[in-house]
């Protein structure tokens, strides 16, 4: 309990630095998430079209998934040096798998009869995709975004290792300086950010789910 109070005091004293770090953390995370969505959701759409393409894309994504993010960051170091760039790239890659997989699964899960009705009523392929297929897959895609976001916010802590800043800075410094307050302040802040994001995206997921069609 005492430690918590001390931690709070530490945060209050260093409010400026703390705020700065939180902003960097969020910027890095959401920047990576945004880039990842632009790249990997379309990739998921491609994957859902079936055939060998699907197997290739999903296979590649699975391969990326097993590489730890820290390893990615370190591998990128020789290319980009220290700073935010290797961190951003690593986080973007990290967000990929849940986005691709959920987009693919979501699109494929749309009821065949519904799609046939869309075609049967005279929708073109693209009308069918934008008006029926994508909206119906959206809840599953948003779940993917949720997973990705939480992973990215957590992993953005590692950005501190390559000098990209963020809340991880408090954690690494806390470890180096053996300062528990510092370490805890960073850890708690990251947790809160992750939870808030999770909560907001869960709400969004609820909003894009048509009444009565929620998955169990």
């Amino acid at each position: 309990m005492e430690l918590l109070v001390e931690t709070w005091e530490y945060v209050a004293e260093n409010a400026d630095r703390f705020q700065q770090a939180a902003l960097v953390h969020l910027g890095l995370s959401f920047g990576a998430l945004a880039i990842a969505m632009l790249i990997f959701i379309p990739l998921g759409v491609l994957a859902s079209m079936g055939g060998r393409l699907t197997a290739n894309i999903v296979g590649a994504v699975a391969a990326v998934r097993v590489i730890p993010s820290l390893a990615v960051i370190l591998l990128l170091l020789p290319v980009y040096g220290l700073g935010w760039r290797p961190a951003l790239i690593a986080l973007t890659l990290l967000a990929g798998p849940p986005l691709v997989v959920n987009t693919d699964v979501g699109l494929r899960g749309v009821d065949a009869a519904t799609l046939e009705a869309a075609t049967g009523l005279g929708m073109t392929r693209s009308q069918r995709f934008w008006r029926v297929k994508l909206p119906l897959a959206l809840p599953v895609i948003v779940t993917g975004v949720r997973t990705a976001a939480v992973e990215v916010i957590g992993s953005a802590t590692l950005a501190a290792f390559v000098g990209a800043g963020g809340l991880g800075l408090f954690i690494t410094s806390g470890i180096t300086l053996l300062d528990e307050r510092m370490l805890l302040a960073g850890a708690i802040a990251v947790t809160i950010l992750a939870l808030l994001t999770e909560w907001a995206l869960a709400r969004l997921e609820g909003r894009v789910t048509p009444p009565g069609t929620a998955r169990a």
Partner: protein
Amino acid sequence: MTNARSSPTPRHPDTPTPPSGATQIRFERVTKQFDNGEGARPAVDDVSLTIEPGEFVVLIGPSGCGKTTLLKLINRLYDPTSGVVLVDGTPSQDLPGPDLRRHMGYVIQQGGLFPHYTVEKNIAVVPNLLGWEKARTRARVDELLELVGLPPGEYRHRYPSQLSGGQQQRVGIARAVAASPGTLLMDEPFGALDAITRSRLQEELRALTNRLGQTVVFVTHDIDEAVLLADRIAVMREGRVEQYDTPTEIIMRPCNRFVADLVGADDLLRRLSLVGALAAMVPLDSDDGIGEDEITVDVPIRVRHVLSLLLESGAPRVIVRQDGVPVGYLDLPAIQAVSIPHYDGADDALG
């Protein structure tokens, strides 16, 4: 039909225009083979058939005989493996699919409502694709909801998941007829409805299509429904059309054992419950006087009902009126004459 329609997409001058009025649909030696492995029989097998503009044709036959496949060949959800489907004389393959389908209402067998659209939006799909104005679409949605017995105030904003199966089916029907298409393709549209709603909707559908003169192709398993609705019935078996004829001909002269069994032609009372009084009656001579106290019935009425009246009253005959005018009579010999099934034993494979 005075159903002027405009398409929002300008069409290339060489592309044939899809039909907007009641269409003629012609199958010429159409075969549809799915790739279900070697030796699988075609789902539709060398079918030739003409459906005239404004005609109400019912497809009937056992499960898996190709009814749905035949229907989907009309709006190009499938294209024939061989042969050609002519829509008002134009080979369907020359017509752009989406455009063609917007002018052919389609009720899908398994419902197929859009779960993320409200009832209102579901019904408005085709009007929206055709670029109707909002007010017109809205008025049309209300009108259709009334027609299918779902008060708009209560149902307009519901989602399909908030409706019963039968209510969903009714929305599916409303959606299909929303843009007053010249052709209606309906795949077992009344399957999930109770008897009362079903017969009300059957009457509404008949009245509607009579009024608009639409061509209707309607799939059902129910011979009573087929007889009630159809101008002509196509009886299918294993991808082939066994007999294509008026309901009366199908019941009175089934071409083989299969058709006879399907329509229950051997069951005398059943036959009589399918045959209409007009088909069975003896026409009245102009000098044939009608007594004051004779029993009269108005068409449409089935012979079985008339038989009950005869037996109950003990009267020698019952006068049949059409539009209030006596046109003929039914007595026991007349009823007996339609009680005996005739079918040519020639291709009577099932014995």
